[in-house]
């Protein structure tokens, strides 16, 4: 979730610069909303946001515990699966680890738990933001 993505589609015109900045702050506020629960991914997200806040760019490169998943993947996930499948699955699990905040430290089982909770939280957040956007649009229409 790089913030730089926001800058990409916009040419830095005067009018748009503040828009980008505003949207970045809104996004950060939304993420802070996500980061309030006591789950592992939520704490990791909090840490990352605080670091960003302080200006240090941290990309969450916690590669230390990837070994945790690699050794157990074949046995845990693929019952009777080929080696290729196990490797594929393992690659996807790694990708998921990178997506879920704090996922890189977790083993497969915990990772799935956190993923489920993270998905639910994201769903709620998206619905809330969507509702808010609808409200704002409506009120703007009322204004005429």
């Amino acid at each position, binding site marked *: 979730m790089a913030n730089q993505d*926001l800058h990409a589609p916009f040419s830095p015109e005067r009018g748009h610069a503040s*828009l980008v900045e*505003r*949207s970045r*702050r*809104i*996004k950060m*506020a*939304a*993420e*802070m*909303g996500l*980061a*309030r*629960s*006591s*789950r*592992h991914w939520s704490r990791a997200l*909090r840490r990352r946001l605080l670091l960003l*806040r302080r200006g240090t760019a941290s990309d969450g490169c916690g590669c230390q515990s990837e070994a*945790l998943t690699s050794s*157990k993947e074949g*046995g*845990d*996930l693929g019952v009777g*699966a080929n080696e290729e499948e196990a490797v594929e*699955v393992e690659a*996807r699990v790694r*990708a*998921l680890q990178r*997506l879920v905040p704090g996922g890189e430290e*977790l*083993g497969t*089982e*915990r990772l*799935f*738990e956190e993923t*489920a*909770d*993270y*998905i*639910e939280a*994201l*769903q*709620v*957040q*998206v*619905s*809330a*933001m*969507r*509702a*808010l*956007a*609808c*409200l*704002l*649009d409506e*009120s*703007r229409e009322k204004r005429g």
Partner: protein
Amino acid sequence: MQGLRAPPDDLSVLERQGACLLNWQQQGREQSNYNPRGGGYCRQMQTSFQALPSGCGGEKNANHGDVHGSIDCFSNGWPDLANIRYPVHGAANVEETSITNVSSNSSRKRKADKSPRSKEKENGGGGKGDSSCKRIKEETGGGATSETGQPNKKEAASGDASKKNDKPPKTDCIHVRARRGQATDSHSLAERVRRERISQRMKYLQDLVPGCSKITGKAGMLDEIINYVQSLQRQVEFLSMKLATASPLMDINIDNIFGREINPSCKSGSTAMIGMSSELLDQSYLRFDSLQHPHPCSGLDTFMDSSDLVLRQNVNPPVAVPDASFGSSFDVNGCSVWSTNLQSLYGVDFQQGRGAALPF
């Protein structure tokens, strides 16, 4: 239910498990009687499981909801795997004191779940999960559910201390039934328990992600899950952009967010927000368009909360609430502040009668 009871020696374990699986729902009714805490929570989880997917994905997962409701649940929502292995017969069968174990497992799990919560390591999580997933059989326990206090501590201690039990002692033993033709040494047993738990999680994820039920392969499902998470993250970005365009007058002061965030107490956060909301109201900001002054709203959720109160003053059409159970889905997160903020937002949403706000 009574008709299912058969002498345990005659049936093979597989058949018993099959019979057990067929009667999950009925067992759920029984089990909930024995678990005043667990049953209530499970019903709550059942509502939330039904509500959240149906609200978000438009899919009716009623079956899964029932299943989740009838399975004894952990405090974080995961079904207690060990209960699946054992058929729950009538109370007369002392050997299979599953019902006792159900309540003892659930209440013990609840206790155990809270303390090691802070443990983030894989071993901690795995060990805790394993100890509670392995069935603990009490030969001397009897049917007394009131004894769950002390035996719980003993079970937790023994379970946490030893993850693998080669030769379980007679009292205070941990039993994991082995299927026919499978190795019974502790390694493969632990492996199998792990695998089953992982597949349980995968199943839950499958229910969560819309459109995932048709896919059978693990790699394909993981692909779907990854795509879904990415799409959700992208939606958050897109919506934040949209919000920025939709409200040029809204200014969110990031500085205040962290001032509040560092304080972990939820209650203070919510009171601060309510204070801010009432302050906004006092200054008679009754419409969005009148938010001319950049008032620092700490966090998007603060804004939503205040806007909710603002709008409630204006718009009060008696609109039917389309999906009231959506609100109960917040219990899944278990964070009171979350539900306070966003639930009020959903109140506004329903009042507006906007079905479009429900995504996917």
